[in-house]
């Protein structure tokens, strides 16, 4: 039955592209897409939390905020930059900082591509000309508020941070959880900003993807005009940090202002593009209502409120595999942990069934189709091209990776579980309610 509904290989998601390099080392990736009169512009700098020095956790992300505070020819503050983009019809604009990379993107009306190139080249070439202590101080506070809002003042936020800290103990560069500590953010100086910019924000440490309604012959001279004169940077220092494998289970119990307990289990999984079986594996575990964890813990045993399983595909020092379950009222974290452990054990004791593996692949594929509907923005075509450029030095690895994923066998899923999801290598965090709150969620 499954064979009958597999779509032909010809209709697999794909992204045609052209890639070249400017003499200063900037990698340029162009991809035509004429469905709508818009163009996605997406710059990836190969710098992230992994490059932070000791005592400066959170710095890569703080720096990202500073990239929106104006530059020599767009003098002002963040309102100036956003106003210029907004006024010219930019959508899907943002900057994001991750463990190993930082990106800046905007989708422009097709006639305004040049404005985006002007802006991006100005902040790559001339950021420090207008950057001052006041901008640093303001954004430092904004970022500390971001930390409060998204980590400290949300349910289970601190547990998520703690999981990372236990998996990658200090002085591992991932220990800072990208957002960093208040103390380290307070320590960041204007000198740090200048050093960081000069070291990492150079054309030879970046790639730009331009995807949308344009002709390459028109765009190439513009890219050359705006980015060509920016000189190469110094050789960025290599990442020397190593991830030490865990040799025994690490456990911690936290209290939080929550009503339901939660169990989080983390493992250090594969690096980017290291093992194609990990995507199907997490999907088999917790992708959708037919997944093992949902079916077993939520539907059958009714001991969990919700379940999740994820692998972070963007960590060069080993991507987190995180499995979580929120404990249903009337049940205990111990029951839930035992059930999660049992399901993980099932993965390495026996291969997945062909049926569930095919289902997992099918859904990964249709998810990709949906992502590729956007030229830019989070996870759109431009992000995909940059991702494969960064990790495989080849945007075309998108197709190779998809092919490899669709070819994964049950035995490979079993092997990846055995390699990475071992009890002695895991971190288990249990979050317990801080106090009895009588108002809701009580037993029935």
């Amino acid at each position, binding site marked *: 039955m499954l064979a009958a509904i597999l*779509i032909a290989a010809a209709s697999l998601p794909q992204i045609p592209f052209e890639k070249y390099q400017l003499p200063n080392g900037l990698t340029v990736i162009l991809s035509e897409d004429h469905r*709508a009169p*818009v163009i996605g512009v997406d710059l990836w700098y190969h710098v992230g939390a992994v490059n932070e020095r000791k005592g400066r956790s959170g710095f890569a992300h703080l720096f990202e905020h500073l*990239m929106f505070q104006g530059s020599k*020819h767009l*003098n*002002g503050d*963040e*309102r100036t930059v956003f*106003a*210029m983009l*907004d006024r*010219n*019809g930019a959508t899907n*604009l*943002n*900057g*994001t900082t991750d463990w190993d990379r930082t990106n800046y993107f905007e989708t422009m009306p*097709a*006639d305004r591509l*040049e*404005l985006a190139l*002007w802006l991006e080249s*100005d902040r790559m070439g*001339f950021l420090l000309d*207008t950057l*001052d*202590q006041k901008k640093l101080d303001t*954004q430092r*506070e*904004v*970022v*500390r*508020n*971001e930390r*409060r*809002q998204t980590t400290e*003042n949300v349910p289970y936020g601190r547990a998520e941070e703690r999981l990372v800290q236990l998996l990658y103990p200090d002085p591992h560069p991932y220990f800072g959880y*990208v957002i960093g500590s208040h103390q380290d953010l307070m320590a960041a100086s204007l000198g740090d900003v200048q050093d960081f910019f000069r070291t990492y924000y150079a054309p030879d440490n970046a790639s730009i993807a331009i995807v949308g309604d344009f002709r390459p012959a028109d765009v190439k001279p513009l890219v050359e005009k705006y980015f060509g*004169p920016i000189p190469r940077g110094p050789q960025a220092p290599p990442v020397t940090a190593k991830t030490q494998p865990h040799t025994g289970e690490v456990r911690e119990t936290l209290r939080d*202002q929550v*009503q*339901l307990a939660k169990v989080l289990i983390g493992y250090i999984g594969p690096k980017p593009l290291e093992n194609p079986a990990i995507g199907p594996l997490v999907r088999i575990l917790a992708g959708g*209502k*037919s997944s093992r964890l949902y079916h077993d813990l939520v539907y059958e045993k009714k001991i969990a*409120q919700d379940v999740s399983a*994820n692998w*972070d595909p963007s960590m060069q020092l080993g991507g987190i595999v*995180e499995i979580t379950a*929120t404990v*249903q*009222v009337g049940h205990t974290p111990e029951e839930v942990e035992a059930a999660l452990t049992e399901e993980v054990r099932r993965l390495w004791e026996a291969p997945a069934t062909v049926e569930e593996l095919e289902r997992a692949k099918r859904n990964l*594929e*249709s998810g990709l*189709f*949906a992502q590729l*509907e*956007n030229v830019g923005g989070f996870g759109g075509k431009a992000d995909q091209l940059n991702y494969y450029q960064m990790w495989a030095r080849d945007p075309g690895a998108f197709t190779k990776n998809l092919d490899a994923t669709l070819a994964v066998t049950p035995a490979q899923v079993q092997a990846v579980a055995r390699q990475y999801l071992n009890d002695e290598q895991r971190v288990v965090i249990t979050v317990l309610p801080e106090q009895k709150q009588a*108002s*809701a969620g009580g037993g029935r």
Partner: protein
Amino acid sequence: MKRLWTVMVMVSCASASPKPEAQQTQAPAGDATSAKPQGTPDAAFRGQPPSPGTPVEFHAPVPAQLALKNGLPVFLIERHDVPLVAVSLAVRSGADTEPAGKAGLSSLALDLLDEGTQSRDAASIARGFEDLGARYGTSADADASRVTVTALSDTLDPALEIFADVALNPAFREADVQRVRVERLGQIAQALDDPSSVGQHVLSRVIFGEQHPWGYPGDGTVKSVKSISRKDVAAWHKAWFRPSNAALFVVGDTDAATLLPLLEKRLGGWKDGPFPKIPAPTRSRKAVRVITMVDKPDAPQSQIWIGEVGIASTAPDIFPVRVMNNILGGSFNSRLNGNLRTEHAWSYGVFSFYDTHREAGPFAAAGGVISEKTAEALSEFMKELARMKSGEVSEEELQDAKEGLIRTIPALFASNEQAAGAYARAWSHALPLDYYATYQQRVGAVTKDEVAKAARERLHPDQMAIVVVGPSRQIAPGLAALKLGPIELRDAEGEARKAVSAAGGH
């Protein structure tokens, strides 16, 4: 969950801007200025932003209007660039049709659709969709319900078969109702732990009151959900899920000749019937403005939610109001965000919005601020609301706000799912079929006087409800000193706590 750290808080989708780039004359502090070790050579062409080319006009796709023999309207937009078809069944009833004491009924019914039909159980429905690579979902709205599926075009028919079965023949088995009810209670508990969601819900309670369904969260309350029976759910579905109260939106890789026979086969047997009569919901709100405080001990941030009943989607001044809101708090460069984030650095981001429906939904101005500055931040919120109400708007603010709204429209149609959703919402909100096609023109026509009039007539800062979720012991004295009204304490569900002094505490 994968988390990305972003420069911009992701709340509302709208955005536009004040402030020209030229003005800043202050020289940069510090010494070192030039960029790279050897620096990027400056050039004349960098001095000014390049001028745009010929503007590309955007024409929102307008769906073709079809119908099934049983009267169900079908709206189709053909798009063949990716092999996906998005289908959205919209029903013009949601939380607004929930009987008193049954808050959460409509969303619970939607959650239960895929938990079992006359011929399928939950597991086979889930497997059925997933085997086809189809994504199924529902959304419960204040006055509408939507059931959606996105399928690969070559598996549209089998996906539609399960979709129609789920939407039309849910079994609502007792065991499934019980299980989903428990899950819902868990979701409610989780929402009560989240200060931002608490702020929003308590604000709704204050402005709509206890008699109105919109005074309660869409998920319901612990009490209401416990009271919802299998019978309630089945009755609600039977009453409101009918062809004359619904419309189907299809966007993607199909055409009318292919689609209509499939739909007739799957949805043609759907029967109509008479509508139940229900009383119109009534709003109630205390005459005196108070500051409602919800205690979140030791929280590093306070969530501030200020609001009132806003406007209906079909209000004659809807476009001036939207432009006005964009200037106030509807964009990154809005007055509120510029003040509380860029000027004062007390917040990661604040915003305002009008939630519009066939009847007036809430207006809110809101955001998280550092606890120590709660009173100061609230005071700045109130200042900006009063300044907006005065109606003074610069030409530049007006142009930027209009531009910002106009340019959000193409993004609504970026994917098939988004396009289907956009039209399903417009239909649910009783907006005309040319709403998106004429949107840009109607926004473009808004004048400064109209915005000023909208601000004067629609904003009532002196009467707006104020909700603060934060560490009450720490922030209450400062809030009291603002003299915006007496302070009352409520719990996270919006129920009044025993009278407590302004000093808060527990």
